[in-house]
Structures are given as C-alpha cells and as structure tokens.
C-alpha cells in the first residue's frame, strides 16, 4: 500500500489551514500497547539502509518506558512512501551512563520517543 499524495498545488487557504492546524500524525490500532509505563525495554540493534527515526546512539540499549504516547503513523515506512503502519509510540528514558558510559553524569537521563518496531521486551 504505497502512500499516494494529491499532487495539487497548495492554495493560500490550504497553507493557512496547515499553518493553523498542522497535520495530525495519529493513527488507529486495534491492539493494546505492548508496554506500560515502568516496563524495561531494549532497543533493537538494526541498521536499515532506508529511513529510520531510531538513532544509532540508542540502539541496543536498556531503557524504561516513561509514558505511552498513543498510536501514530510510522515515519520509518512513511519516509519511503510504503505504508502508514500505525503503531504505539512510547517515551523511553535512558540513563546517561547506559548510553555514554561512566564518564556521563550518574544523575542525567535522555528521553526519546520510540515506536513498537524499535523496541524489544527484556
């Protein structure tokens, strides 16, 4: 299911609408979220040659679900016009030392929004 676009010239009215309302990126899923706040997760180790919003510095790391953000369309497939592939997005917390080793501050954390397809249960 490739993503089709209207290929219409954007009118002033449409631009004004977009400026004021933006684009709703939420999607719908019949499934419950795989993870809940507090769950420990590990990010996948993957190196797709195509588009992904899973940065290298968090791949293969242990984190904790901070919040379930809801269902959104999946950028990794949208970027290639393949499919909307809606799925849950979770805000995931990583200790700075998990990402950067003992030189990082023991207090500091990184929060990042990751999709079902980026995460494994531990």
């Amino acid at each position, binding site marked *: 299911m490739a993503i089709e676009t209207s290929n219409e*010239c*954007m*009118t*002033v009215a*449409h*631009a*004004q609408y*977009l*400026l*004021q*309302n*933006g*684009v*709703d*990126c*939420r999607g719908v899923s019949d499934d419950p979220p795989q993870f809940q706040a507090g769950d420990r997760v590990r990010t996948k180790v993957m190196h797709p040659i195509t588009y992904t*919003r*899973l*940065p290298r*510095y968090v791949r293969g790391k242990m984190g904790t679900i901070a919040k379930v*953000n809801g269902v*959104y*369309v999946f*950028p990794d497939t949208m970027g290639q016009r393949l499919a909307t592939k809606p799925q849950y*997005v979770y*805000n995931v917390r990583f200790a*700075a030392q998990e*990402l*950067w080793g003992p030189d*990082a*501050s023991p*207090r*500091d*954390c*990184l*929060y*990042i*929004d*990751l*999709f079902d397809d980026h995460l494994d249960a531990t």
Partner: protein
Amino acid sequence: MAHTHRPESEIALRVKAIESLLVEKGIVDPTTLDTIIEAYEHQIGPHNGARIVAKAWVDAAYKQRLLADGTSAIAELGLTGFSSEHMVVVENTPQVHNLIVCTLCSCYPWAILGLPPTWYKSFAYRARAVIEPRKVLQEFGLVIPDEVEIRVWDSNADLRYLVLPERPQGTEGLSEAALAGLVTRNAMIGTVKVQPPEQPSTLAA
C-alpha cells in the same frame, strides 16, 4: 553559523530557477509562498510560547492541565499549528533541568516558538546536547549544579517539546503580560533560565 560551501549567488540563482519552473508548471503558487514566508517572519514566534508559560505561572489549574496534556492546554489558547500538533511540556524545577534537541534533523515546535535559531540547527548542538549537555549549557552561560538532574529530550518522532521554565524570584507583582515579556525563546528550549526584569541575560535572545 554553518556557512554554505558554494557561493551564495550560485545558490540564489539555482533557487530562482527551481522556483520559476515550479510556478510555471503549477506545482507551487507564488502567493502561497508569500503567505508562508509572511507567517513565519511576522506572525509566528516565541511570543506564542511566552503566553503559554506566563499563563502557567499565574494559573495553577492551567499549569496542571498543560503538564498533563500539552496539546489540549495549548489548544485552549488557540496556539496549535504545523509542527506543534502533539505537544509535551516539561517543567524545570530546582531539582530537574530539561533541555530539548533533535539529533536527527532539527524538529522544533514551529507554531509555538517560530522557526528554530541557527544554533539549534547546528551540527554542534545536535551532536553534543545528548552526550555533554552540561558543557553545552555552559556555553550559554548556564551552570547546572551536579545534584540537579538534567533531562535531555530528543524530539525524533512527531511529538514536540516545550520547557516550562522556573518563574524568577521577585516577579510576584507582575501581570501575566509582563511575565510573558520576560520569557525568552532559549528559556523555552532549556538553554537559559528566565531572568528577573533587572538582570537581562546576554544570551537570552
């Protein structure tokens, strides 16, 4: 700032050529382009975010709604818009300091803060904010004590982040509008604190 590696005049000519072709073929409308540029140059900007922050400072119930569901609370003020559709607001406190970045590109809450400044889009900020946030903050003149937790938010998906800075001391008598006047763009990204009226920060642009 990152300088272009080709002469500016060469780029400008290329852009002109592409624009004339896209207009000729009916792919873009010049009036639409003007509308977009006018909106970001003159209408949308950090004053939107400053209104949100000032309201949260004076209205405890609003602050609670803002932190619980940023998107709805910001929509109450009519401040929705492109690249700010799904908003999360994070609160700075004496114990926690928040900092926003987008390492993969430069995602930013356009409708709330306008288009991002050069430093936010720079390779230096994108690369360093996640690995050495304390050193980055020092370059903005902000020293965060070791006992304060720094939370870095990498806005890599469709959610956009806004920092609710701490209200400065000595502003108890100020109106909401006067408070909004103190709130700077950088304070809402988390690279500076909001200063009381008598001590403007040199890097608070």
